[in-house]
């Protein structure tokens, strides 16, 4: 159970090597010793390193294999996390690919992979997790969307379209499961300096995973449904969303 002051006991991360997810876990570890974490990700060095760094901070970590391109793998990871003893207080849907924009809109394999991972697998996980959380009568699902979901731009519209789909699904899911005591928090970060964006020039208002984690935890504790990181992004994107298309497409974004 999330307690009266927002401490959680068990967290399950789909995409357990995500920098933003790990930054969020580190902050949760600071609040309380012995928080249980299940990291679902592909087996390998990155997952091992993530687990070790969380254990060093006093978390109790379980690892489970998870491959977002495989539907059976989604079902397996979620079943094994929820069959363990104890309710899951928070699930983070944190996996995703940025992809190569130029390939993604011209190469069907690249486009298919992005859609599969960022949208189809996210929806599948959302469906499966929501069912489990409704049965508990409490819990929170954190879905990593993006400001790109709000108005996909020409420089990465395939990625943007998958996030727009994910965003719409989890926003609707939040309304569908609210009566069952389940909170769905859709997180819309701007440019974040992570391994996903390594090598790219930072955009304005860029931030660290730790800053995004602060926004996520504040939204979680306050019971919010949507948060922007940084919060000012909300007003920036609101402006961009209402720009006429003729103007928007000429912007260097």
């Amino acid at each position, binding site marked *: *159970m999330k307690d009266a*002051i927002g401490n959680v006991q068990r967290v399950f991360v789909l995409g357990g090597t995500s920098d933003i997810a790990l930054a969020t876990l580190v902050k949760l570890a600071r609040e309380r010793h*012995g928080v249980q974490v299940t990291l679902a990700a592909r087996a390998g060095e990155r997952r091992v390193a993530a687990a070790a760094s969380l254990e060093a901070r006093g978390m109790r970590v379980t690892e489970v294999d998870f491959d977002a391109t495989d539907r059976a793998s989604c079902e397996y990871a979620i079943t094994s996390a929820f069959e363990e003893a104890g309710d899951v207080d928070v699930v983070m849907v944190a996996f995703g690919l940025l992809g190569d924009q130029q390939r993604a809109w011209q190469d069907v394999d690249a486009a298919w992979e992005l859609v599969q991972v960022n949208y189809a697998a996210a929806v599948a996980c959302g469906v499966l997790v929501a069912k489990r959380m409704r049965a508990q*009568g409490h819990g929170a699902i954190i879905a990593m969307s993006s400001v790109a979901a709000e108005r996909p731009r020409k420089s990465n519209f395939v990625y943007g379209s998958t996030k727009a789909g994910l965003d719409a699904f989890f926003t609707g899911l939040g309304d569908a499961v609210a009566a069952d005591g389940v909170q769905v928090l859709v997180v819309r970060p701007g440019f974040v300096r992570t391994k996903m964006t390594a090598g790219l020039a930072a955009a304005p208002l860029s931030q660290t995973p730790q800053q995004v984690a602060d926004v996520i935890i504040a939204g979680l504790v306050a019971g919010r449904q949507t948060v922007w990181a940084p919060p000012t992004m909300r007003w920036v994107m609101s402006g961009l969303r209402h720009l006429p298309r003729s103007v928007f497409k000429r912007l260097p974004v």
Partner: protein
Amino acid sequence: MDSRRQLTGWGRTSPSVATVHPAGDDAHLVRLVTESGRRGVLARGLGRSYGDAAQNGGGLVVDMTARSRVLSVDAGTALVSVEAGASLDQLMRLLLPLGLFVPVTPGTRQVTVGGAIAADIHGKNHHVDGSFGSHVVAMDLLCADGTIRDLTPESELFWATVGGMGLTGLVLRATLRMKKVESAYCLVDTERCADLDDLLRRMAEGDHRYTYSVAWIDCLARDTSLGRSVLTRGWPATRDQLPPKLRGHALDFRPKQLAVAPPVFPSGLLNRATVAAFNEGWYRKAPVERRGEVQSIAAFFHPLDGVGEWNRIYGPKGFLQYQFVVPFGAEDTLRRCIQMLSDTGQASFLAVLKRFGESSGGHLSFPSPGWTLALDIPIGAAALGGLLDGLDEAVIAAGGREYLAKDSRLPASAISRMYPRLDEWRDVRRAADPDGVFTSDLARRLGL
């Protein structure tokens, strides 16, 4: 007649959704228990536990207030049999005119008998009369296997149920030994105490002369006034002690609710400035010393019952109550805890301090000989978690514990360090309910 509903405790934090069934007859409850499913079943009374004790997310919750009849009254022996959903308010209204008062009353009348047993509640008379469970002579408990057992204080399951937070079964009926009184009034002595030393000394020296004793501490007072407080103590008034105009209807008891708090208060209304102003005014208003004042039972025991839904004044974020007991001899810990609260300025309305007497036999019963402090704290300040974790450690180090009926945030690791008889309780519970049919959000959070 069931429905899925979001439930919280009195502190309005950590909601969860359960299927709520109004309690029907015994056969109905047997069916609910034996067919409860994976998420189990739990009894709920009037929802005055502050945290998640009366919630069972995803499972069944039985609303016991649907069963609230008084079954028999014997004015001679003062033994009264009631259904578990009967409230103390109801018992006072019905039985005070017969000269029978509940043996123990907390700061509100709005609790059920079942809840009073499950939390083994205490009142201002704990130092002489003990907790609620000590006045229960028998109860009917619906167990996980669907049988109804008639328990008396000779059985282990009885004492696992007293203070057992509803996790051993559904209490259906109980027989209580009431307290005989001549009036619905108390004679009250009030004293203002300049600081904590002054207060502790007066309580240690004088409490034994009184049936009822409690002190209200201004937790925001600092430095030399740390622990400044108002001590009120009294006895049940005999008819002869009342002023003549009250003697004719000495046992009348018809308290009224003066107002209901509307659901419009913002979070943060109770902050350091507003609470400090309130506390100052309240301390100044108290007499330096007053003896033998006649107060009604409602005014003396249940001042907050005059305002319905008063928990709303803390706003939508809710609040928590922190209550602990430390043994006699651990006065330094008590002082340090008050100092920590005062230093961080966590706004609390007046904190309540009381001396506990002997424990009842409940394995998980909270009261044990020592000093107990209780205070309300609004949710909001980021530093709150760290402050309370620090208080937990101080309390545990002194051999103390916290009250499960108030708790909404303890980590599972703290419980075995606070309740030395936890394993004993678990054995009795496992024997009575091997599959854990009776469970709650609190039980899951604390791994009870």
